[in-house]
């Protein structure tokens, strides 16, 4: 057993590894705090600039993305919650609907979470979606950015997504258990150990298992673009991992209700796209033209929903 006391350690003799750890944690804090939890949308050229003096492979991959219509990026703070935060933002932005989401608290309860540990988090998410629905389309971005930059709102939503991920894993344990390993030791973990240590704990980064589980729990298509600096021989300079939970018979909604849900749920027509760099996730956004088209398609339904919401009140 040993301790590093951050207040008293300064001025004492430190081992090289302690100095490294200290530097690393200071560096992390410094880079983290300067960035909003969710930043505003910027052209991907901002990211390119950061790599221009570095790896050509990264620059080539960014150029490839730009050529293929991925012209903007919305960055998330690198605090271990970036995947959940980026995905939540993109989800609420593309899919401000409670039809499916409102069924998920029952899933959490069914795997044994007490209502009191998650209901406040759920209410924050539900409240935000209702406020987004009530806003005209052009005002939503401002509302969402300010919500996701507010730590209490933002972290509550992140926490709900973590618990939803955990609940999905726990309720489908046999499907996932062969793939659950301790990220550091490589030892096989059971679903409870994995969820407690690597999903529910705050600030723990998500890996492929968590991403797969959350896309299935939310029934949303997710594309993850890997900006990994690898040079590929094929035409595709950037690898995309595509998650399509609704095409998977084990996780898709039951066939009998599919037809009914398709008509009532505003199914996102395009996947949520995340940009992965080693250890970090941001939101990748397609160019204005594609975006405008997407907006027009969704607008009629959104207006209807907003109206329906008003009537309910």
């Amino acid at each position, binding site marked *: 057993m040993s*301790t590093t*006391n951050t207040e008293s350690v300064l001025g004492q003799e430190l081992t090289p590894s302690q100095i490294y750890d200290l530097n690393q944690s200071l560096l992390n804090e410094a880079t983290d705090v300067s960035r909003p939890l969710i930043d505003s949308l910027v052209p991907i050229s901002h990211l390119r600039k950061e790599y221009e003096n570095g790896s050509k492979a990264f620059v080539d991959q960014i150029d490839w993305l730009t050529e293929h219509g991925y012209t903007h990026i919305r960055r998330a703070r690198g605090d271990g919650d970036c995947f959940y935060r980026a995905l939540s933002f993109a989800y609420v932005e593309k899919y401000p609907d409670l039809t499916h989401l409102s069924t998920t608290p029952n899933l959490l309860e069914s795997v044994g979470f007490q209502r009191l*540990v998650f209901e406040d988090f759920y209410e924050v998410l539900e409240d935000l979606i209702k406020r987004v629905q009530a806003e005209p389309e052009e005002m939503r971005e401002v509302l969402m950015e300010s919500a996701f930059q507010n730590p209490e709102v933002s972290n509550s939503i992140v926490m709900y997504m973590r618990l939803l991920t955990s609940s999905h894993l726990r309720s489908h344990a046999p499907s996932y258990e062969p793939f659950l390993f301790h990220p550091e030791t490589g030892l096989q973990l059971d679903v409870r150990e994995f969820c407690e240590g690597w999903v529910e704990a705050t600030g723990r980064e998500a890996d492929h298992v968590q991403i797969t589980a959350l896309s299935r729990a939310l029934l949303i298509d997710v594309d993850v673009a890997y900006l990994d600096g690898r040079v590929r021989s094929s035409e595709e300079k950037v690898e995309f991992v595509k998650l399509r939970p609704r095409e998977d018979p084990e996780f898709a909604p039951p066939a009998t209700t599919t037809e009914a849900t398709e008509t009532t749920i505003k199914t996102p027509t395009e996947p949520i796209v995340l940009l992965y760099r080693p250890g970090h996730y941001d939101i990748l956004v397609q160019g204005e033209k594609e975006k405008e088209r997407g907006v027009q398609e969704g607008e009629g339904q959104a207006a209807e929903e907003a109206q329906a919401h008003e009537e309910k009140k």
Partner: protein
Amino acid sequence: MASISSRRLAKELAEIHSEGCPVGINLVKADDFTCWWFTIEVMGESLYQGDKFTLQFRFDPQYPISSPAVQFVVTEGRQAPIHPHVYSNGHICASILGNEWSPVLSVVAVCVTLQSMLASCKDKQRPVDNDRYVRHAPDNPKKTQFHYDDDTV
């Protein structure tokens, strides 16, 4: 609207009052949403038979996203249990209070975990670096970065 922190703590407190605490755990005081005290005793056979310890929880406005600061009270004649994970100033080295904290843990769940940490103790001794740690320890145990390198005790 009340903050998430006070909403959550209000619910936890209501549950404690309506359903009571698990055996061996008792609420001493919870007059606000910043600091609560409990007593804990280990039931059955253990190295701490007949001992009663006082646990203090301090909550910041980010609770339950951020962990509570939990320690044994060592003032006015109260003592911290002698345990390889408990420093003589009352600070506790437990991963669930640090990097494995999750909001799914409630105050009562933390008490139960610490109670079983004491119950399973085989060797009543202080952490090896107790004196060095206590000399420099910050007031708030959350400011300490513990290394959880021993899961066996």
